[in-house]
């Protein structure tokens, strides 16, 4: 399917302290979001730019092994709940999904714009 809208995927910032996942956090209740919002979806208070920890816990994962337009299988993906941050969808290396409850770290974005994460121990 085609789209004329902006890329909804989160972006990262790479600096001296490493990688941070960019997003927004509510100035009222602290709710973190990875997609741009005008106000907090929970309390309607303003949100402010935020940089989230790249580390988190794998929530669920799989590997797509079927052809999807614009993507070359196989590719593994996972939902990762960032520490004190939102849940984000990431690509992970290889074709073996990262196990839920394991630790993962976002290392950047792929050439196609997806967040990329690896097992946390590989980065430390």
């Amino acid at each position, binding site marked *: 399917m085609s789209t004329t809208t902006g890329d909804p995927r989160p972006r990262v910032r790479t600096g001296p302290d490493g990688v941070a996942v960019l997003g927004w956090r509510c100035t009222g209740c602290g709710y973190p979001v990875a997609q741009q919002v005008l106000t907090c979806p929970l309390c309607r208070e303003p949100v402010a730019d935020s940089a989230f920890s790249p580390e988190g816990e794998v929530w669920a994962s799989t590997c797509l092994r079927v052809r999807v337009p614009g993507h070359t299988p196989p590719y593994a993906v996972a939902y990762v709940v960032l520490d004190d941050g939102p849940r984000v*969808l990431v690509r992970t290396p290889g074709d073996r999904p990262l196990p839920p409850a394991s630790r993962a770290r976002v290392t950047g974005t792929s050439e196609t714009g997806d967040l990329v994460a690896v097992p946390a121990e590989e980065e430390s």
Partner: protein
Amino acid sequence: MSAAFVHGVGTSRFGRQPGVGAPALVQQAVTEALDDAGVGDVRELDAVFAGTVFGAPGTAQRALQLLGITGVPILTFENACATSSTALHEARHAVLSGRFRRVLCLGVETMTLHFSGPITPEETDVEGRAGLALPGVYAMVASRYEHLYGLEPKALAAVSVKNRRHGALNPRAQHGAEVTAEEVLASRMVADPLTLLQCCDISDAATAAVIGGERGVGRDVRIAASALRSGELWDHRSTQPWGYELMARVAGDAWQEAGIGPEDVDLFEVHDAFTIGEITATEALGIAEPGGGCDLVLSGHTALGGRQPVNPSGGLLSRGHPLGATGLAQVAEAVWQVRGEAGARQVEGARVAAVETMGGGTAGIDGNGCVVVVLGG
């Protein structure tokens, strides 16, 4: 109006039939439904509540004019896979409120015009842009479920084996062949742990139902309850697999309205677009405790001949999935079962049936919409 009834149901043939357009499919389904309802004159219809997900603007009007159904309000709903069950829910309330005396509900989808492989979410969503096609969405459900409760491949396979065995008894099924658990698990991996035979096929089809008030006709089936909700935010705070909490909430609404519980239902038609979907649905509906869905299917409880058959039609796994038409296909099966007209797949003594349709695809929420309908009793 104190109650609304299904006066008649009908469907087109189900299958990949790209040469057959929506108008022809709609004519098949609506003609059967009108005949089934005993409606000889389309002027007896006060309105049409139609549904299509990918259909072009005017899809319903374009088809219905060929049946002479013109001049009445024709409304088109979209609620992902729950599109036509949403139309039925709204039609029921339109009849109950007295707004209309008789409403034709219609679902139609020509999936082969839009997809050759798996359905993908919109690219405006992170999941769509990242290539998380619907099999991947449900694979994530399976992954989370396994983390919470454990999930044996044989339980997933058992859903496919059961529903395809049921589908072999359904002449309307798109895929009517039985399979073994070994064949299911050995079929090509689509999205871990879901193999090809655990995934429904896309389908071109139309479905229809005539909804009206009580008229003293024995074949009419009372709609005891219907409930509809869209999903809450599904984010870092969520612990449950996608869709589970929405299904459970809607089911709770339906049981409360019907004044019965899942234990009082003789059969269920649930949204088994993928095998894991049936397991989570049976738990969300309350047929099994959380984490008990695998044992439920492995025990035979949900097979034809069991205590509470689930998907006696063969489900989406056998019938195929014409998105906007699927909800009414489930309702049609429930109606045939409660009437005792389901032939070789008849659930003996069926009096009460429940239908659950789960529509999804929008990132960030627990589902676009879920409908639960209780019929009969």
